[in-house]
């Protein structure tokens, strides 16, 4: 039997995940619609004055993005857990970390990337100044992968549990708080014309930390849940 390289398996699994994800398009849209609806409620509750909306725009978009991404995590492992293919993936001769990372990357491409696009669009609707668009994009680019990475640990721990979705949110939201603080503070600094370097460094550090540690934690969690 021919032994495949890890990279080949990684891309193979990534392709499979993307294909499966795109086949269930409506499922991908749910978190985005949720995001849209939550953000829409703020002008309705607060009133349509641009000045007021501008002030809360960053906070609203980031909080709604955190909530939407915590809802989207549920689909990362569930269907594979239910039909047993997750077990097969973990039992394969390939390093499980690599395979888990392929799933996380696919999840980010399918849910994180669309979230970035819609967040930027919504920031226009909430009158966020033009100067803040690039910083917003930067924080989202650094932040959404961290959502998927940290989220993968909690998703793996709660996969297959009754009421897993709500439990998942309870576990994951406190861990997202540092991310929220740095991201919102970066964009707010940009609005005021201050430097955002420090916050971006922190976000990058968090991303690197999450990238190095979470694959192991996620694999271990999946092994525990499947034992």
């Amino acid at each position, binding site marked *: 039997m021919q032994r495949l390289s890890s990279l080949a398996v990684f891309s193979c699994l990534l392709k499979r995940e993307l294909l499966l994800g795109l086949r269930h398009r409506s499922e991908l849209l749910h978190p985005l619609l949720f995001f849209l609806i939550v953000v829409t409620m703020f002008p309705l509750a607060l009133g349509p004055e641009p000045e007021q909306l501008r002030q809360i725009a960053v906070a609203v978009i980031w909080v709604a993005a955190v909530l939407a991404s915590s809802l989207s995590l549920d689909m990362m492992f569930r269907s594979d857990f239910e039909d047993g293919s997750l077990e097969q993936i973990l039992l394969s001769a390939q390093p499980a970390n690599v395979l888990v990372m392929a799933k996380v990357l696919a999840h980010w491409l399918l849910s994180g990337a669309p979230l970035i696009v819609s967040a930027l669009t919504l920031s226009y609707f909430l009158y966020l100044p033009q100067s803040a668009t690039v910083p917003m994009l930067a924080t989202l680019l650094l932040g959404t992968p961290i959502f998927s990475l940290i989220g993968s640990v909690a998703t793996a721990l709660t996969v297959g549990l009754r009421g897993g979705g709500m439990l998942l949110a309870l576990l994951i939201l406190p861990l997202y708080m540092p991310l929220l603080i740095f991201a919102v503070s970066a964009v707010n600094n940009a609005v005021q014309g201050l430097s955002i370097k420090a916050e971006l460094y922190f976000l990058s550090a968090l991303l690197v930390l999450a990238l190095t540690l979470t694959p192991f934690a996620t694999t271990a969690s999946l092994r*525990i*849940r499947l034992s």
Partner: protein
Amino acid sequence: MFGPLDKYAAPERFYLLCKSMGPWLSAISLLLFLVGLYGGLVYAPSDYQQGDSFRIIYVHVPSAWMSMFVYVVMAVSGAMGLIWKVKISDAIARSCAPLGAAFTFLALATGSIWGKPMWGTWWVWDARLTSELILLFLYFGYMALQAAIEDRRMAARAGAILALAGLINIPIIHYSVEWWSTLHQGPTVSKMDAPSIHTSMLIPLLIMFLAFKLYFFAVLCMRARCEIIEQEKNSRWVKQLARGGVDS
């Protein structure tokens, strides 16, 4: 693996150890509580700025310290259970969570009672109170996960991973919240530190701290006993214990 401690890693031995240690720890901690309360409420002079309200630190600060300490104990013993498959570390980790949550709640409640005369409101989004609140959420998350997973072994191991993830996050949360609060420095100066603490104020605080710590270990012993007999309820020694020690 633990050298001379190895024999206590057997659940039955550990149960007996807890049973014999428990009363001693409780007694010493009660004694220290009485001394510390006397020291804090009577012996320590009142603060020149905060008056007698500063005496709340004698319960607030030790419970805040304990809330962090218990999380570390929970994560470390969870990790030991995960790596070396020691049954008793699972029991210890599971016993820590409600206790840690109680300390965290106490730190929050006494902090807000202290805040009322100092700041004029029951709650201020002060850096320390906010990170304490997030810590409470972390404890609740752990307890929710424990409740959701039926199998005790699996629950303990899943909890260990969650606790380790939380442990890595606690310094980050702490730092980011400090960052956030310096950014939004309101009109009220949030300084909960005992200003330039005097020795006569410090000694009761240290005694209270010891009392809290021993209290934690005493209650941990009791909780771990519950966890162990529940975990081992099909073993012979637990059945004997349930029958009142007589094997009939």
